[in-house]
Structure formats: C-alpha cells, structure tokens
C-alpha cells in the first residue's frame, strides 16, 4: 500500500513539473506515465542535494517539501495564468479521438496486444513474488535504498550510493521514509513501475498522436527481448537504465517525426534523468543526447532554426543536480566514477595494444559480442530485425526523419561495443556482463525498429490508397526532372 502512496505522490509532483515546464502532451495516460518518470527523477535528483549538499536528513518533512514544491509552484502559476499549455492538450486530444487505441488490422494487432498483456502480467506477478537473491542486487542495487532509509551515510555507504546512482538509491526508499517501514519488495516494485510507465508511454503516445500501430509495435518489440523481460523481475538496475534511455529515445523518435521542440525537450529531460541510474548512466545517456543536440545544431546551421537553449537547459538540470549530489556525497574525485574507470581502462588498452594475449582476448571478445547480438538469444531477434530494417530501407533512410534516431542507436551500440571489446573484454568472453550491457541498446533499438516498420507500412499503404498524394509526396522528396517541350522544327 505504501508503494501506491509513493506512486501517487511522485506522479503528482511529475504532473506539476510537466505543467511548469510546459511539457504536457495533453493525452492523460501519456502525461501520467511521463509524470512518473519525471516525478521520480525529480525526487532522485534533488534528494542527494538535500541530504549530502545541505545536510538535511530525509525525513517526512524533507520528502514533503521536495514533492510539494512543484505542486505548489504549479498551482500558483496556474492561478496566475489559467490558460497554461492548453493548446497542445487540445491538439493531442483531437488526434487521440481520430486514431482509436487498437489499430487495424485486428488479426495482426489483437495477438500483439494479447502478447503484450500476457508478458506484462507475468512479469508483474513473477517480479512481485520474487525476493532479491542475486549478488549485485544484494550488495549494491537493492542495498542502496536501505542505506537511504537508514540515513546514516558512512563513507562505505556513500561509495555504494555513487555506484548505484541517485535514482535506484532514493526511489525505492521513498515510501519507506514516508511511512518509516522497510519492505524489501519495494525495490522490485520500483522496477515494475518503470516497465508499466514505459509501456503506457509507448502505447499511449502512439495512440494519442494518431499512430496506435506504432505504439503497440513498440511495446511488442521491446517485450521481445528475453533478458530484458527477465531483468524487469529482478532488482538489478540494467533494465531500469535501459527503460529510462528508451523513454528519452521515444521522444527522440517523436521529435524526428513532429519537429516539435517540446518533444526534443522531453527527450533531453528523460535522458538527463537516465544519467541518474547507475554509475554508467552518465555515459550511456550522453550518447543519444549528443546525437539529438547534434540534430538541433544541424537544424540551426542548415535550416536557420533557432537553437533551443532553454531545451538544453532542461537536459542540464537533472545532470547538474546529479553531479552536485554526487560531489557532495563522495567528493569531486569520486563523483564521476565511470569517467575515471573508462580513462583507466583506455590507458590499459593502449598500453597492451601490441601484446599478444590481450589482442587475442579482444578478438575473442569481438566473437562473443557478435554471438551476443545475433545468436545467444538474450536479445531475441532484435539485432536481426534492426539489420533487416536498415537493409530493406537503405534507399529511403538517408532522406528519412528516422536517420537521426538511428544515429542515436548506433552511438549507444558503439559505446557498448567499445566497452565490451576493448575496455573490459574479459567480461564479454566469460559472458558475465555483455548481455546486460546490451540492454541499453536493445530496448531503444526495439523502438526504432517499430517506428521504421510502421512508418514504412503507413507510407506505402497511403501511397497505394492515394496515388495522387503519393505522386505529390514523391515529388517533394525527389523532384522529377522536367523535360523541356521540344521546339517544333520549322522548315
């Protein structure tokens, strides 16, 4: 019950923040899911600043202030400007009415929806039933919230916090701190809540924006990753990081489609919050964020669109808050452990570049990495589908809006490949972490595949039904060469 209270409180904070930032989509289900991601991120970003920076113990009063601050601020603003963000809401509602929630043909989408429902129900039940029983979870991921509940924070505890990241540390402890009772299962509930929020977001966003087939295809694709599905029932943070990055990626895809700067802001905000998960989160979230920023800069250069500095500020807020919290907790030298680790491993990799044994290890790691992508079964058929979609759409892709999101997926894959093959090849060869590490690529890739496939079908179906429109649209993409009328030859 106390976790239900946590959900309500954090969703309320998230809704208030969405209103304050002008980032509501107007679709109720989407906004609630987005509010969970944002509200929990807000709490996780602020809690370490309050606790370690200001030295304020996280009791009920502190929790109340953190959660109620955006609610009160939003209320005041609403009272002063009653018509805040009413326009996008109206637009989304209109689109929602037009689309309907279950797409046609039913013989395709009813089984897909059934699969999504069955797998989700199984994950919720199995996850809720299963106590924490794996090493990394007991030592770090699920232990960190207990340290937050204890609130003593000796040096060793702060090191665990730096490793787990603010979100896995403080989010499951929210209800414990509020009701002063610790329930070990809340750590799993927090992971399950992430899954439900992501599924509602992908299906709801597709539906509200007139493309329900895209929403269901996305949910189907991301539940096609066996290791991801299993991880959602565990108390590890790999699935959480993957889902947080996927939330950002969803709006990267939306931005590619709509060119609405609100979507870019949502994407950057969610990616900024993803940086609060695990020590790896900072680097992982940086890859798609950098691509999106690159896209915005490209548009500034090629299309003379204004560069959205406010949007970049939205990205910076959770990142800066997270950094301040980390620095306050463990000091500047230990606040960014992944950067130090990567630098150290890169140094080792360069030093051993000419040595035979590490070279052989990297070669073996490359083989195992290939196996992990295509044959091990941990990622299902996602990388085959990704390859197929890229090949089948090779001609259309360079002109497609999906090329930027594809670059974001490629950046994520490159990061994991470099890490798995060059920096820590031994964990790829013994297959202890490579499959988990790939989840942050696979889940966003699943969303990209769904978008690529449904967009292609929609374009071709529309072209078949409206040949004239098709001609017009093709003309817009590649203007046909006009022939000059031949001059009549006069005798």
């Amino acid at each position: 019950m106390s976790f239900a209270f946590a959900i309500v409180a954090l969703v309320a904070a998230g809704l208030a923040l969405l209103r304050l930032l002008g980032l509501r989509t107007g679709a109720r289900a989407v906004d609630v899911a987005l509010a969970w991601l944002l509200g929990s991120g807000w709490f996780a970003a602020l809690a370490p600043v309050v606790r370690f920076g200001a030295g304020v113990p996280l009791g009920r009063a502190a929790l109340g202030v953190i959660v109620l601050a955006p609610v009160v601020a939003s209320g005041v603003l609403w009272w002063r400007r009653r018509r805040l963000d009413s326009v996008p809401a109206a637009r989304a509602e209109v689109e929602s009415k037009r689309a309907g929630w279950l797409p046609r043909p039913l013989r395709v989408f009813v089984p897909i929806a059934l699969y999504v429902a069955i797998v989700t129900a199984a994950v919720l039940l199995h996850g809720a039933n299963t106590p924490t029983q794996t090493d990394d979870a007991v030592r770090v991921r699920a232990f960190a919230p207990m340290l937050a509940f204890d609130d003593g924070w000796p040096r060793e505890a702060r090191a665990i916090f730096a490793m787990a990241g603010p979100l896995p540390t403080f989010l499951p402890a929210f209800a414990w701190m509020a009701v002063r009772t610790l329930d070990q299962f809340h750590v799993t509930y927090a992971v399950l809540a992430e899954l439900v929020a992501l599924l509602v977001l992908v299906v709801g966003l597709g539906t509200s924006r007139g493309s329900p087939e895209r929403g269901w295809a996305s949910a189907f694709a991301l539940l096609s990753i066996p290791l991801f599905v299993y991880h959602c029932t565990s108390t590890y943070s790999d699935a959480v990081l993957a889902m947080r990055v996927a939330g950002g990626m969803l709006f990267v895809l939306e931005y590619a489609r709509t060119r609405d700067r609100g979507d870019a802001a949502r994407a950057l905000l969610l990616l900024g919050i993803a940086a609060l998960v695990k020590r790896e989160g900072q680097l992982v979230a940086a890859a798609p964020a950098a691509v999106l920023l690159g896209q915005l800069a490209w548009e500034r250069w090629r299309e003379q669109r204004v560069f959205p500095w406010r949007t970049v500020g939205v990205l910076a807020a959770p990142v800066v808050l997270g950094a301040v919290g980390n620095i306050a907790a463990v000091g500047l030298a230990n606040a960014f452990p992944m950067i130090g680790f990567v630098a150290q491993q890169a140094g080792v990799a360069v030093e051993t570049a000419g040595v035979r044994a590490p070279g052989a290890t990297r070669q073996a790691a490359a083989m195992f990495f290939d196996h992990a992508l295509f044959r091990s079964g941990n990622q299902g058929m996602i990388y085959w589908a990704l390859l197929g979609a890229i090949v089948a759409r090779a001609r259309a892709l360079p002109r497609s809006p999906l090329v930027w999101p594809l670059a974001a997926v490629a950046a994520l894959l490159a990061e994991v490949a470099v890490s798995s093959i060059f920096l820590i090849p031994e964990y790829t060869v013994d297959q202890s972490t490579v499959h988990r590490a790939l989840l942050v690529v696979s889940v966003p890739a699943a969303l990209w595949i769904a978008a690529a496939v449904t967009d292609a079908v929609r374009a071709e179906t529309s072209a078949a039904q409206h040949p004239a429109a098709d001609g017009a649209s093709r003309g817009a993409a590649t203007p046909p060469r006009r022939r000059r009328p031949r001059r009549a030859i006069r005798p």
Partner: protein
Amino acid sequence: MAPTGCGHRGAARVRASLLALALASGPARAVAQGGFTAVPLEWISTRLNPSARATLTPQGLRFDVDGPSQVFLPFAAERLELELEADGPILLIWAVQVGSQAMTWGRPWRYEVAPRRRTTVKVDLATVAGWTNAARPVLAFDGYGHVLVRAIRVLSPPADVEQARRTYDRARFWAPESIGPVLINSVTPVLWSESRGTSFADVVALVALLSFAAALGILRRRGGRWRPGVALAAATLVALGLWNAHFLVRFVPMANLGPTPDPEERIRANYYYLPEFGALAALARATIRPEERVAAVGKPKSWFASQTLCFDLAPRRCVILRPDEEVHAGISGVGSLRTSDVDVIVSYRGPELPQGFVPVAAVSPRSYIARRR
C-alpha cells in the same frame, strides 16, 4: 517446474530398453504401465552408490539428506516418474551422468522443491544437458531431512542413437527455462539442434528472409508495385512472432504466477532453488526483534547466505560473521559490530558458533537461529 512434452510415443519408435536388459539379467520384476516400467525398489537399492545413504523400508526407499548428495540410478532412461515425499526443505535436482561426472549444473538447470506430501514428480531427462540413450540418471538432493521414494517408473530411451539424438534435440529445444544463479547474466542459449550446434536465431532469420521475399513477390503481383515496407513488416512480424511464441513456451512455466499477498510467505517459499534458506530467512524475520543486533553466517567462501540474510533482515543491524575475527562488517563493508555486541546469530550451514551462543530455533540441524545462553 517439471518439464512436460509429448510426441515421444510414436509408433515408428523402436525402443530396445537398456533397462529391460538390465532387469532381464537380474532377479527383479518390472511392471509396465502406460509406456513406463515400474522398477522394483529392492532391485535399485542394492545397486546404488554408497554415498547415496539409502535405506530400503516397507514404505519405500528412504534417502537421508544432510547437505548435497547424489544418487546414481543403475539404468538408462528417457523419463522418470518418481512417487515421493520429503519431510524437510529439500531440493531435488535431476541430471545425467556423462563419463564419471554428474552434470548437475547443466543449463537449463532442472530442479524442483521436493514435495511434503506424496506426489508424482515427472522428470524428462532428455531435457538435461548431455543426455544420451546410454546416460544414467542422477538424482541430487540438497537440504536436510528424508526423502521417501515410494515408486520409480521409467520410460526407457530409444535404442537407435540417431533417434535418441533427435529426441534430445527436440526436448532441449522446448525445455523450459529455469531460475538459477546465472540467469541474471544470460538466458540459456536456444539451439534448433543442439547436437549439430544450429542456432534457433539463424533458423528464424532465414525463415524471416524467405517471408520477406515471398511477401515482396505476392504484393508485387497483386498490386503491381513494389512494397518493401509491408514486406519488411511481414518479415519482422514472422521473426519476432516465432521467437516470442517460443519464448512464452519456455518462460511461462518458469514464472511464479500465483499471487502471494503476504511478503513473509514470499520470502519463505520463493527462494526457488534454496528452500532451506527461504525457510530460515522467514523464521529469522519472524523471531528476531527490530532492535536486536544480528550476525549472519553461511558456508565458508560462500557470499550468498550471509549477505542475503542481512538483506532480508533489514532494517535490523546486521553484520556478516567471520568466525576468526572479533569485528564483523555489514553488507559491502557498511557498519560493523564486535562479537560481544551481537545478540543473535543466524547460521545457514555455517561453521561452529562462537562461545556463549546456543541454537534456539531451527529449520534443520545446520540452519538455525542462536542466541546467547
């Protein structure tokens, strides 16, 4: 969790039962029942490995279990039906003997908590890593108490090696996944043919490619234009649909789908392959007061029990007991207690207790809660 399957009784199958040969060479009696042959327990009891600690009683074959033990059955089999019951938290594992070794950790790991009431446990040995038609079944027990086996019925394996190989490939392909310590890192690889090393992903990719080509051709003939996007959707649906159907078949039997509202019951019953540990954790949570200071101890060189006990006992102050040391640290080195400050020790198969502590509650003689005298 017992894997099931069908299609093993085809008329074309010719079985030359190694079991029958074994039985024919001895004084034992065998009774056939639905393809299974009941093996007399007295015949088995004289042929077991001595480490099995088995006693033939009027009720059946009784195994004394105190920690891990293995029973090598003296015949080859494809399936077993075991009518058994246990009187303590005991894990039953089944495997096969390959060479002189029992492969009790092959993936997917095959196990079940031994039932407390008389139950027929169905064991499909063909799903076990390394099975052949000559492999001898191995039953492994872990826990404390007694397992009473009232009857063993055997489905003998096909005599033909090629047929046995096909049986093995089919059984392994459909074998349900199982929860084990390494599942968090990777799922069991799915092979279309394990004996040939053919990956299921390769087969699905090929089928999807053919689907793409077929859809492309059909759409072109019907509509007069190329529609690679629709063909791509069809191929993707085929690829993900086939994979997901197989995924459901393998993972749903593994999932714990019964709603259990009580968290104490979840902790007691849902350490799936560690029933004795689950019972101890639940007992400790029920009997140790929140203000008491706890030390947890497990088997030497094993991280699991002591850490997980402390985790389950939070927010009580808990440290991991190191028998040779005076000061003990908590999980990941957070917090510490001296031995003299400890009120309660929870031991899961741990070494001897420090002086002054006596067991006060137990789930087995080696897993207990101890307090100061």
